[in-house]
């Protein structure tokens, strides 16, 4: 058991890396890719909102800026959208600094509302700056890099593994202690010599850049973006929050578990006849159930779930 615990990360990573060798169908690969992409976004959000306590309702802004960085490198400069990975670091970090400068002076719900507004502003700007972004027409790649999904899978898997490693390192270091101290009590943190503005900004930039990576990947993978898709409030910002809430806020594996559940659930509900279009309703109900019964998410309240399934389950 201890062995399992110590090497669980490597085991999971190894198993995932072997998956494409099974010759899975293109649809299953697509679902896997989405799950991993959402894990990345969830882990990024968790850093800022789970550990540092600055709850963001506007992560679509970073996702969208990442996606548009990749898309515009292709549509404006005619180079591969994959250059979006290095380029987005600077572009997303810049926008994160701007958003941080405006929003991070606010605390608690006010910060959340300000980020919500930011996400919406980014969408509206992207829709209306037609000369820059192409507006509602969006950006389409004339041809995708690969037809097969295997390489996309490995690319997002590498991004996810790197993100997981980074989050772990950060949380176990001074930065992590400072983030959590700020979450628990900002005044106490200040009086302990912690420059709360600085460390909140660091959390925001880390979180934003990682989310931007997911956006870059999305552009290259899907081959098409428009402002309504990548700057979406309910389909990106809110789902990001749900992924982490369902999985477990401020846990290492929570975002991964949350991503699996949310992506599978979305696919299942969408395939239901007639009810499919109401998938947001189901998500709303799920969120309420989670908040009432598992406020720490599935990973955070795992002990509670075990108890529920009786002594038989508790032994394993």
């Amino acid at each position, binding site marked *: 058991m201890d062995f399992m615990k110590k090497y669980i990360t490597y085991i999971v990573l190894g198993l995932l890396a072997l998956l494409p060798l099974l010759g899975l169908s293109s649809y299953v690969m697509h679902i896997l890719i989405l799950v991993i992409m959402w894990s990345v976004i969830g882990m990024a959000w968790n850093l800022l909102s789970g550990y540092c306590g600055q709850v963001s309702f506007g992560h679509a802004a970073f996702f969208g800026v990442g996606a548009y960085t990749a898309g515009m490198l292709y549509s404006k400069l005619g180079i591969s959208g994959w250059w979006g990975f290095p380029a987005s670091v600077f572009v997303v970090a810049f926008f994160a600094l701007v958003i941080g400068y405006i929003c991070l002076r606010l605390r608690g719900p006010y910060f959340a509302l300000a980020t919500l507004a930011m996400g919406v502003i980014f969408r509206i700007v992207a829709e209306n700056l037609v000369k820059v972004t192409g507006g509602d027409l969006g950006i389409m790649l004339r041809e995708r890099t690969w037809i097969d999904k295997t390489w996309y899978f490995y690319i997002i898997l590498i991004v996810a593994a790197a993100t997981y490693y980074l989050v772990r390192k950060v949380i176990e270091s*001074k930065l992590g*202690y400072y983030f959590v101290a700020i979450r*628990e*009590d900002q005044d106490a*943190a*200040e*009086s*302990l*010599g912690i*420059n709360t503005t600085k460390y909140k900004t660091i959390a925001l930039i880390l979180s934003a850049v990682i989310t931007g990576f997911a956006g870059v990947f999305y552009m290259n993978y899907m081959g098409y973006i428009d402002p309504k898709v990548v700057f979406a409030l309910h389909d990106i910002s809110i789902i990001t929050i749900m992924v982490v809430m369902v999985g477990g806020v401020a846990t290492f594996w929570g975002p991964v578990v949350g991503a699996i559940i949310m992506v599978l659930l979305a696919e299942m509900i969408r395939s239901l006849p007639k009810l499919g279009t109401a998938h947001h309703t189901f998500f709303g109900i799920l969120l309420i159930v989670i908040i009432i019964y598992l406020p720490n998410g599935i990973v955070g309240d795992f002990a509670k779930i075990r108890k529920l399934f009786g002594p038989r389950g508790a032994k394993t």
Partner: protein
Amino acid sequence: MSLLQVKKVSRFFGGLAAVKDVSFEIRKGEILGLIGPNGAGKTTLFNVVNGFYAPSRGEVLFKGERISGLKPHQICQRGMARTFQVVKPLQRMSVLDNVIASAFLRAKDRKHADEIALETLAFTGLTADRDVISKGLPLGKRKRLEIARALATQPKLLLLDESFAGLNPSELDESIGIIRKIKERGVTIMIIEHHMKVIMSISDRIVVLSYGEKLAEGTPAEIGRNPQVIEAYLGEAQSA
């Protein structure tokens, strides 16, 4: 040698002067008691010294440097730490993690921070509670955790805001012992306290505030004889 100089400090909230023209000094190595009836402006004065509020007028010098206008974390980095009257533990962190978080201020790395934290816990007698989540600590220990956390930043000047309030007699003795040990380490202390017996026994000097103004300053014996102080306190006590 004065470590801290408070020069004609005033702090207004709207039209109300919470602190008015207060001046005093803290000498290196002493324990200065700050007393006064409820609402006298003691905690406001703390917040001004510590940087949570900027003074409306006047200035505060620490080690000869003007610190008013600096942020609390900058003042803490210069060697001043505080506790809060209403304790502010980092609730969902263990006692040890609370202290590690503050030890990072002076630590070179994680290992060093752990060392400082463990040493501080031993010093304040909290070692047995190191793995307790601080939300679940009884009040007495939470007050002590405040002190431990402040100490882990290795301050030159420690501001204690009612660290004895609500303690039972045995906890009180323990805490007084800890304060004396802190002083022996060469840390200067300013302390707000309502418990007269405590303040009279541990302070080297006392400053009395009343309605935001400095009423008196002197040794505990002088303060005990001061008719104005007696009126401010006993006058209240009689009417109560």
